């Protein structure tokens, strides 16, 4: 009896302290699925504009911004009412965006007109445009907010943009079709995935040079199926997860060694990912199997699959 009491006490202690809320953009069904990380179920499906892709919470956690490319805008969802309440003035066909650390300025990659739009998030107005390479996509900001990195799918470059002058200060050539950029939390490296090249380039942001590469090889899998897209790094900068598209796997990478330690089988055509704020779980969007995989970060295991809308693309979790 005493033992049972102790056991249930332990179980209780192991249960998550509080649930988080994840928002997933479904590119084909023009919806956003809301997932509760306690029950791991979809609690609401929000109708949004056409072709929702890039999605992110505002820093204060009050709103969710979602780029609806075919409507040429970014919609704003109120996290409390879970309804679209406003829109932001992006350029044509916005795909991905990044906000500064304070959550005041938003930089939007507009896939169709080769520009990055700068938006004041408080006033929700457009501050200006930056001319970049063809088909801009990946976007990230350095932890100090001084450098914005934008990748261009067609010119195979990472553009380094000074956020104060809004000028390109360097272009770094990476492998074919760069899709996503991620800074290490200590700002010492930027990692850029190349979908067709099948690699992740590690760049020294001070020298603007490629200083290393992460390569992927999965026994029994054609090289063409390995298409790196999303990158997620733990706060201690020790472990990175790289989504490998139609390889249907997420690679676990030792950041220091730049070597893959494990491949986790998730759903089909995995692209983007988000950690829960406590970093216990990593959620991935699987565009072809129309689901989200939940990875237990410490155990490096897939523990759950959640069906969402059609063609899940991006994911964000409330801070």
């Amino acid at each position, binding site marked *: 009896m005493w033992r049972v009491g102790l056991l249930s006490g332990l179980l209780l202690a192991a249960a998550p302290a509080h649930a988080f809320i994840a928002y997933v953009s479904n590119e084909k069904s023009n919806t956003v699925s809301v997932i509760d990380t306690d029950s791991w179920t979809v609690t609401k499906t929000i109708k949004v504009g056409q072709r929702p892709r890039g999605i992110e919470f505002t820093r204060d956690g009050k709103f969710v911004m979602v780029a609806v490319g075919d409507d040429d805008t970014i919609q704003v969802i109120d996290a409390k009412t879970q309804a679209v309440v406003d829109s932001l003035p992006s350029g044509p066909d916005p795909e991905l965006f990044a906000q500064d650390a304070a959550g005041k300025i938003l930089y939007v990659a507009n896939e169709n007109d080769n520009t990055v739009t700068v938006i004041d998030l408080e006033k929700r107005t457009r501050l200006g445009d930056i001319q970049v390479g063809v088909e801009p996509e990946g976007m990230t900001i350095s932890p100090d907010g001084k450098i914005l990195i934008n990748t261009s799918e067609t010119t195979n470059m990472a553009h380094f943009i000074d956020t104060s002058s809004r000028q390109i200060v360097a272009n770094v050539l990476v492998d074919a079709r760069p899709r996503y950029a991620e800074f290490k939390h200590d700002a010492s490296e930027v990692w850029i995935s190349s979908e067709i090249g099948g690699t992740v380039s590690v760049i020294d942001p001070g020298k603007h040079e490629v200083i290393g590469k992460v390569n992927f090889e999965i026994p029994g899998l054609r090289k063409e199926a390995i298409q790196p897209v999303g990158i997620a790094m733990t706060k201690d900068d020790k472990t990175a997860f790289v989504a490998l598209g139609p390889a249907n796997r997420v690679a676990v990478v030792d950041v220091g060694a730049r070597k893959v330690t494990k491949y986790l089988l998730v759903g*089909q055509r995995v692209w983007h990912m988000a950690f829960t704020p406590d970093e216990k779980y990593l959620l991935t969007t699987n565009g*072809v199997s129309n689901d989200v995989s939940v990875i237990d970060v410490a155990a490096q295991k897939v523990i759950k699959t959640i069906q969402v809308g059609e063609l899940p693309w991006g994911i964000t979790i409330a801070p």
Partner: protein
Amino acid sequence: MIVRVWAVAVLTLAAASTAVHAADPRYPNWPCAQAKVPEISLAAVWAGPELGDAETKWKDDAKVAALVSKLSARKTPMDEAEKSVKEFLSGSGSDKTANAKLLFAGLFDTLNAQRSQVMNGLERVSRKQRDAADKIREETIQLQALQGASSRDDAKVDALSNELIWKTRIFEDRNKVVRFVCEVPTAIDQRLFALGRLIQQEME
């Protein structure tokens, strides 16, 4: 005037059709946005036990072969396909694992072959579209020359502009078809993965 508008539209169209997405240097004729994966690898869709000789033997089992052809047909709705898989495996008794392997091996072969056929077709059409775009571009230049000639031959101008309009229409229609057909390989991937997942679940 109308002809000129057309010509401009055609040129823009022809240019756009080749630059919608960054081309993969390995497959210059691949017209779809998703980078080409020439065939599905077993490791991408199957985490179950090794298929072993099931990879060749599934064809010899009449029941499995019939079920494979039913499940591989796109006209068979997924819920019906899933029901058939469950019925087949639950009625397999002690042969369940062996039958599951045979069934998946058959689906893998058949759907992969189906997918290759569609992809080859897409690349063939894409090559033809490129030639058509070149031809339209050439004839547009010819037409402009005819229109600007000092002794303008109206009959010839009309004939060529009509032909151009016709060719452009075909070009546009084919482009639409290509975009539509680009979704087929993905739909096949989806079917194979979903059925594979179900078969693995049923084996547990």
